[in-house]
């Protein structure tokens, strides 16, 4: 597989930057364009690229199938749990203002938490779908 060499080395060089860009999009989403959805898709794209070049088995070692599939409901639970936390602390559902010492900080924290939930669900779903398709293909 000599022809694969450039592809493999290139992908190995590329992957850390793709992951870094996904994290940047996730945590910089409050300041620039982006957010949980975009970051989730970029993360899933990174795993899928790795799986295409190195094989699905290698990808399942860095992102195990059980973990990916449990990420699908986990993100929704984080999102809804953030909403329920506001409910338990005496405000409306999805009112984040009671999550920290004052309202703006609480809402910032709430936005951060729900974006994490979106990231987990989106990346988990996309990767799990790819795994399911590649399993059917064999």
């Amino acid at each position, binding site marked *: 597989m000599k022809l694969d060499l450039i592809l493999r080395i290139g992908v190995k060089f590329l992957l850390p930057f793709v992951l870094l860009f996904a994290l940047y*999009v996730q945590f910089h*989403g*409050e*300041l*620039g*364009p*982006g*957010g949980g*959805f*975009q970051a989730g*898709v*970029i993360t*899933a*794209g990174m795993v*899928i690229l790795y799986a*295409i070049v190195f094989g699905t088995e290698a990808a399942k070692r860095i992102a195990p199938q059980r973990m990916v*599939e449990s990420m*699908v*409901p986990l*993100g*929704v639970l984080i*999102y*809804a749990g953030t*909403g329920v936390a506001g409910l338990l602390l005496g405000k409306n559902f*999805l009112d*984040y203002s009671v999550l920290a010492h004052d*309202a*703006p*900080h609480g*809402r*910032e924290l*709430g*936005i951060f938490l*729900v*974006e994490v*939930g*979106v990231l987990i*669900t*989106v990346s*988990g*779903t*996309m990767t*799990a*779908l*790819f795994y*399911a*398709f*590649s*399993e*059917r*293909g*064999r």
Partner: protein
Amino acid sequence: MVLLTLLAAITIGVVRTRNLFGVIVLAGIYSFLMASVLIVLDAVDVAMTEAAVGAGVSTVLLLATLHLTKSMEYPRPRKAYLPLFVAICTGAAIVWGTYSLPPFGTPDNVIHRHVVPRYLADSVKDTMVPNVVTSVLADYRGYDTLGETTVIFTAGIGVLLLLKGRRRRRTDQPGERSAP
């Protein structure tokens, strides 16, 4: 205008091509062009999503689907004049409808006078988040985004059940056991 012409050309190409592999590649190019159009319209968040989902992940998923099925579309059984007529009428009605829309990008349009000034003025004060898109999506309109996340969850679970359930039933049949 150049981008829109290219979009139209690719749409015709997608309709005319019978090879589904070519259709998927053309659809990826269409998504990238659409992302460029959205950047021109200053909708950077949507452009990012379009480039990542439309051109990236969905292309890969469609190729994976193609791997499971045949890559040639069946020839069209007959000329479909009635659907063509309906499509042209609907398109003409939509174009006619755009003439009564307010001019594009005017700041005092109706939709820009309801809650938008409050969001723009209060986002940093309320949520300490300078990107108004993020604060609208995750805070002011948190219910909607929760619904969208649930939609992704439901769709993903549905497709996973479809793909996995069929496979297990097939491996149950004797003599057809596939390699793990």
